[in-house]
């Protein structure tokens, strides 16, 4: 069973495949420029001490974004493995 959730809701260590990336203008551009596009696998690797920003693993590197930026990204997760 697969379901789609907002990146903000993901737990640390949870994995998923990006389904959609909303947002346009600068916000959308920055997110996409860094490689957050549909089809990419992401894993939440940590959260900052105040729970925000969030650190993400993409295939070959780690990046961080704020929760309100993560709101634009929807991720498909496998309910059984998580």
């Amino acid at each position: 069973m697969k379901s789609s959730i907002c990146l903000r809701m993901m737990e640390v260590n949870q994995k998923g495949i990006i389904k959609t990336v909303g947002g346009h203008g600068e916000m959308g551009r920055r997110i996409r420029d860094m490689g957050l596009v549909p089809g990419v696998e992401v894993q939440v690797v940590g959260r900052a001490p105040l729970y925000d920003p969030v650190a993400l693993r993409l295939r070959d590197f780690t990046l961080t974004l704020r929760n309100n930026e993560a709101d634009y990204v929807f991720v498909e997760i496998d309910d059984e493995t998580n």
Partner: protein
Amino acid sequence: MKQTDQKITIALTGNPNSGKTTLFNTLTGSRQHVGNYPGITVEKKEGLVESAGYVLHFVDLPGTYSLTAYSQEELVARNFMVRENPDLVVDVVNAASLERNLYLAVQILELGAPLVLVLNMMDEVRKKGMTLDTGLLEQRMGCRVVETVARQGKGKKELIDTIISLNSRKEDFKSPLEISYGPDLDPALKEMEDIIRENAFLTDIYPARWVALKYLESDEEIISEGRRKSPDTSTRLEDVTNKVADHCLKTLKTYPEAVIADYRYGFISSLLKDVVTRDQQRQRIEMSDQLDKFLTHRLLGPLFMIFVLYMVYSLTFLVGDIPLSLIEDFFGWMGEVVRRTMPDGLLQSLVASGIIDGVGAVLSFVPLLMIIFFCIAFLEDSGYMARVAYMLDRVFRYFGLHGCSIMPFIVSGGIAGGCAVPGIMAARTLRSPKEKLATVLTAPFMTCGAKLPIFLLLAGVFFPANQALALFLITLLAWASALLVSKLLRATIIRGAATPFVMELPPYRLPTLQGLLIHTWERTWQYIKKAGTIILAISILIWAAMTFPQLPDNGFSDEEIQGVIAERDFRGLNTAPGFPANTDDITLEEEQIELVLAERQLAHSYAGRMGTFLEPVTSWAGFDWRINISLVGGFAAKEVIISTLGTAYSLEAGEEDDPTSLSDHIRQDPDWDTKRAVSLIIFVLLYAPCFVAVVAIARESGAWRWAVFAMVFNTVFAFGFSTAVYQTLKLFI
């Protein structure tokens, strides 16, 4: 032109953290900073390499992830590639994360720039158990690919040879890359391309398809350039764009720019198919991840961060104290030698009081600064600084700043000993003009290296047992002021929404000793150069202001002597009853007359008059005219504050006196007490930035009114704060 002096201009571009700057250093031997923090290279750096009868002129462009027009760096990079027509564009990519790095390379190819791809960090690729088929990549990209390990200088020769061999075959590069953007965008692109070609719309500068793409991506820079060029054509293109955007929103629920990014990444995936093969994955990044579990842990992370910052202090003061006193002694000795050997008069006074004391006071802090710079370089190059930004972002956002504001703040002196000038420059990384402006305006509150001497001096005299603690508290005060003022500014005159934080966390890397030394030396040299030029000039200027106009007559009448003695008695300088009683006391009395006379001379000078003029107001904060002179001098450069105080006291002491150190003077002078010291520390910390920083503010904010604002606002703020603290302390002490 003979082939022997043929020049090849090469633009060096790449993502932040791709090792571009390291490669630039390896190639040109240039003294330039190498950092792990995204976007550390904000200035245009150039370097020359001579090889095989060619002169290779490298231009190190700012590190960027993309070629949009959202930040100054991207614009600089894009405009250089398009307008300066470099012979070649070398894109340095981190081969260990090819996919994301090629996003920039593909855009360069679309721009039709003559690209050479450098796959850097090949050692990391191997360590991660990946293999790359460079030949296949070369074939698919249609450009030359060179493998390097910039840290070890590997591949340098191959790159230079490739550049030289490609230079003679420039015609190979003419056609820009065309990617298919799918059934929704391709027809529109075609239609726009036709309009663009028909009207020769910007085609003298950019490829037609690229302009069409930029319209679809709503690139404000290109659209406004287009409107200036031909409003009619631009309107036609905008109409097509709007139509496509509507269509995308209705049928795909997305934006053309999102479709473009998706297809670009799709194109990159197809490029990389069979190029990248992975065995056991991510060994190295996992090491970094393990470290992050501790270093960015909710509780341990911040604790460790505070520990690191405090260690930088302790190290600086423990180790730096030894060379510091040696250098101080040396300049004290030099001043003494000059006073002994040169004949009395203006020239001797100029050399001893103007030059040696002034510059000596500044140079004596070089060892401290070197240690601090070394520590900062280590934090930056290791990748830890990016984690600091990550951990602090939530806090900074609260104050209307950005996680990346940490960098300008720290360079400005957030870790005591920076300099606001490079700090303000480092704010160029910030993408939002508003957060950047707030950062630029508040970064000068930090404890820069030039303010440190006065803090060290006063802490040494008034808090000898708690020097490190005092400096730590001063730095905390600087941070509190910067953050609160920033929040105030962002809520009033620079209001606006926050910008995206999206930032890479580079893997931890052990900095190379050479990189650290280059960095340390570069910053220290900047400081010394400043001491040697501006500060020497200011020091002489201030000496002149304190020496001229001379008292009308250097001799003085009996009446005047009586007046001087009366003044001295009134001031309580002589406490011996029945004075003068013997010849020793008479000599002493003569010396004291000299002393008071020198003081009167200073009060008579231009500087003294100005200081006296300001005294009625500054006395609210506990400052006398002598401090006023030095604070006025501090507008020019903060180092001048201490050297002026030094000059003032050595002039006052009279030339025959043994030069005792400024701290001894302050310790013995009854006018100096703790509340004055605290008030002065606060004022020096917060008042107007030095004029070099003011110029930098004007440049980075793009407006002189912000520079003027910084000078006026900061001084008023500082004075209000100092006065409040002084008056409060007065009630208790």
